[in-house]
């Protein structure tokens, strides 16, 4: 039953569990978000936060593992978790496509790149080999590979890292998908190449009006491309809102910690990094309360032992900006670091003379 009012992509209460000999790994717990065509959602998190697992579920890749998935994934009026394996296969690569982190291992080493791209096209279109090849060359040209008619017959190892990622993008976009999931697409690349790839992705997104999910651990990348941002920690969304609101007014201590722990190329040079102490909790036996409890510097400001015992809900703090945190007054977070920054800046200036 197609629902007109539903957003283009609506992930609702998505839960992904993996049974293992050590117990059930709660990779993603009741995750919900929406995305419209032409927009970019950035999903930020560290390894094990569930950001990749939840996105693979949109592609239905969990169907080939022992994962237990529940919830709903509505794409253009269809719940992708309800359709048959074959119907999902027909959507995969056609309506939803994915780009992976390491283009060298994501491409088959034994086949020519042209054949691998054409394969994606022929899986969803009844065309001749010749037509598929022509379309492949056209796509290679579109993603900025020089001499595409010659390079179409090369093998993946004959390309540089950036060019390989362009090949992956060409493969993902050859069927004009409406949703593109990019899983750390630039992590394995150099900065100047990363900039090229991000530009290319944004150009293509504009051209094809694609909905884009950008999974990354790099807040800088998020800042460059995302409209909305979802911050994930230990399998759950902990903060969700527009990129601007989230980066300028982070409201969950984890988001704040991420921003504070990353050095930048413009701020004061001697600002000490404020790392988040400790490491993430086990996904097999998640803590009873807030998953960030124990690493959080502000849990003592919350009355009682709520952070330790009661899982905070993901609640709006203003229109379109949600956080999963018991801390009411976020200004204490900013106050502390502004104080510290002022001291740092003062020492730098004093030292300069």
């Amino acid at each position, binding site marked *: 039953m197609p629902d007109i009012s539903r957003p283009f992509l609506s992930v609702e209460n998505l839960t992904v569990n993996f049974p293992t000999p050590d117990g059930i790994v709660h990779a993603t717990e009741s995750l919900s978000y929406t995305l419209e065509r032409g927009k970019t959602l950035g999903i930020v998190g*560290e*390894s094990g936060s569930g950001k990749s697992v939840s996105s693979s579920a949109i592609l239905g890749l969990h169907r080939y593992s022992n994962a237990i998935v529940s919830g709903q994934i509505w794409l253009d009026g269809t719940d992708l978790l309800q359709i048959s394996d074959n119907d999902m296969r027909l959507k995969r690569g056609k309506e939803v496509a994915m780009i992976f982190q390491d283009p060298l291992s994501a491409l088959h080493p034994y086949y020519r790149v042209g054949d691998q791209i054409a394969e994606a096209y022929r899986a969803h279109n009844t065309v001749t080999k010749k037509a598929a090849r022509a379309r492949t060359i056209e796509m290679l040209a579109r993603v900025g590979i*020089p001499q595409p008619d010659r390079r179409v017959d090369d093998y993946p190892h004959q390309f*540089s*890292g*950036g*060019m390989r990622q362009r090949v992956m993008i060409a493969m993902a976009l050859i069927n004009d998908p409406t949703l593109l999931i990019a899983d750390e697409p630039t992590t394995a690349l*150099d*900065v*100047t*190449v*990363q*900039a*090229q790839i*991000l*530009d290319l992705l944004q150009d293509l997104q504009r051209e094809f009006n694609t909905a884009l999910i950008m999974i990354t*651990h*790099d*807040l*800088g*990348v*998020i*800042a*460059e491309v995302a409209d909305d941002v979802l911050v994930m920690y230990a399998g759950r969304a902990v903060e969700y809102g527009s*990129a*601007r609101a989230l*980066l*300028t007014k982070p409201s969950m201590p984890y988001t704040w*910690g*991420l*921003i504070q*722990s*990353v*050095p*930048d*190329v*413009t*701020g004061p*040079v001697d*600002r*000490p*990094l*404020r*790392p*988040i*102490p400790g*490491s993430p909790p086990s996904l097999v036996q998640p803590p009873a309360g807030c998953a960030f409890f124990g690493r959080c510097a502000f849990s003592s400001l919350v009355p009682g032992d709520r952070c330790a015992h009661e899982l905070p809900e993901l609640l709006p703090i203003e229109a379109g900006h949600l956080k999963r945190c018991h801390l009411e007054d976020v200004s204490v977070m900013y106050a502390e670091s502004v104080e510290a920054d002022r001291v740092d800046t003062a020492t730098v200036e004093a030292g300069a003379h």
Partner: protein
Amino acid sequence: MAAPLLEVKDLVMHFPVKSRGVISQTLGQVKAVDGISFTLNAGQSLGLVGESGCGKTTTGRLITRLHKPTSGQILFEGEDIANASPRQLKPIRRDIQMIFQDPYTSLNPRQTVGEIIGAPLVIHNLVPKNKRLARVQELLEIVGLSPEHYNRYPHEFSGGQRQRIGIARALTLQPKVLVADEPVSALDVSIQAQVINLMQDLQKEFNIAFLFIAHDLAIVRHFCPEIAVMYLGKIVEQAPREQLYSAPKHPYTKALLSAAPDIQQVIAGGRRERIRLTGDVPSPINPPSGCPFRTRCWKAQDICATMPPPLEPKGGAGIVACHFPENTSPEDANTPVSTARNAA
């Protein structure tokens, strides 16, 4: 003026490329490091940045003498170790240690942490047997791990903890120089800062000189007051960080900086234009004539193809290898990158 702790002069590393005939011939050379010079003083940090294939990792391996350089000098406390034999190197290896990028593969999975950290003590036979454990536990404590964990194996630790073990191993012999090759790039963001802070504390406490090799401009800027930018085996610019980041002189440095995503700028206001570098880094087997960057440079003229620009001062504190450097007039020096015009 005292001699620098470490001085590198015209260091060259060429790896031969062999042909495929009945009798193999040397066809060419991969010019991984192609004549670089720098000095490192005791307790100082020098950053080496560049993209993959620029020769920064090879430079680190030359200084720790994991490779033998093709030519050039590596003066450590005035003594040239570029051609030293393994026997001559043994005492020097105590003073120059290395921290590796990947904490997962650089620790032997079948050795306990105590054995890994204590191995240098055994090899160099420095501490009597009955005091080795105490030293290992002391080192574990220094890097922020629990001393009781000396009996555990690497797989029982997280990535950040493993990197701490790698650092402890490097510290065992109380080195004077630490070569840190991408020490945090394999770690999660929230863990990176922990390890960076640890290394900074150790540097202050033990007066260690760091050669800090990384591709992440922000981290290098944070760690090193002096930074050298490498491209195709050569240093193209070297300057104090304040100048390098606010007023880069080499077009490549400028492009590199403008390509680095930066949250603070977005928070401060809007997005900025990037300088788009087109194409890839040329092959180090057959680098361009003249200036190595000229094939991707928007300012390149005829002279760039014929004459390699010398690495020399062009106003300000640093040195730059460019015929047409940016930001040379004094008032330019305060122009932030964010307002620099997109030249592409």
